């Protein structure tokens, strides 16, 4: 990767910005990816012989491995009128973030991660609204029956 990984704190700050950016725009996507970071560490890197000796080497690594977390938005462009039709969209550049979570801090990281995501994903349907609507629905149903 060309860009350096952010610290966990910076990552959360930038991720909040990313969600805010998405909210201001009114539409768009936020992608979050997580995977094991296995190949950056010289000692844990699988040599070909090691893989041959034990094909399931990754099932039981000697030490816990860090997790790589990436976040990005979707690119959007006006279109050039040739390959893609010209739209009324604005050109949006790709924003890419990444951070490495050491194995010891996974629980703490995910607690904060959940908070940031819950706050950021404000477009999703709220539970309270639904309940109110259900109540209304019941009331309406009752009214309908009395009228009928």
């Amino acid at each position, binding site marked *: 990767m060309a860009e350096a990984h952010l610290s966990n704190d910076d990552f959360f700050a930038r991720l909040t910005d990313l*969600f805010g950016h*998405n909210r201001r725009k*009114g*539409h*768009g*996507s*936020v*992608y*979050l*990816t*997580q*995977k*094991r970071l*296995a190949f950056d560490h010289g000692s844990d890197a699988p040599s070909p012989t090691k893989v041959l000796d034990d094909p399931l080497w*990754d*099932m*039981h*690594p000697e*030490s*816990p*491995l*860090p*997790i790589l977390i990436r976040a990005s938005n979707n690119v959007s462009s006006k279109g050039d009128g040739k390959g893609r039709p010209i739209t009324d969209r604005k050109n949006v550049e790709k924003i890419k973030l990444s951070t490495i*979570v050491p*194995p010891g801090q*996974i*629980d703490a*990281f*995910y*607690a904060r*991660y*959940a908070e940031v*995501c*819950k706050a*950021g*994903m*404000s*477009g*999703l*349907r*709220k*539970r309270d*609204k*639904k309940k109110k*609507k*259900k109540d*209304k*629905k019941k009331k*309406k*149903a009752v009214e*309908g*029956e009395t009228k*009928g």
Partner: protein
Amino acid sequence: MPYFATSTEWFEQSSLLLKARPTTTRITSKYTVLRPSASKIRKRKKYLEKRPNLSSTNNPSSTLANPSEPTATFKLKTYDPVSGTCLKYETNKAAEVGRLIGSLGKLSRHMAALPDVVDDFSKPTEMEGIETPTREKDVKVEVGVVEQKVSTGGGGGKKKKKAKK
């Protein structure tokens, strides 16, 4: 691969996949807000006109309540490029996000090759908090479906009542 109906199912299958292929499997989550196109809005309006029962006030789905409202979804995808396995789950409920990120955290313990044991005191309470709402939710969804059926069939019921009178 199709979407799983429940997040617990997705979580179980994903953790099995991660146990089998911890190095290559990745989990991608996508939060999307989609502004409906003009034709989509027209379609939604038509649909609402067809079914007066689903008018804005007594409709549980906000996308239908307001045809021009953007649809927001949260999708989870566990993918292993080596075996080509892809496990997906999609939701549009804000209440599920916390629980889903929690399960992402648990899955990342598999990724990090950390033991699965419950070493924190906070963990068991989390587990309880995570499992109970799913059951509630399932029940709620079923209730919602039943209610919808009742409401759509309500017209027939009313007619019968009138006939009796």
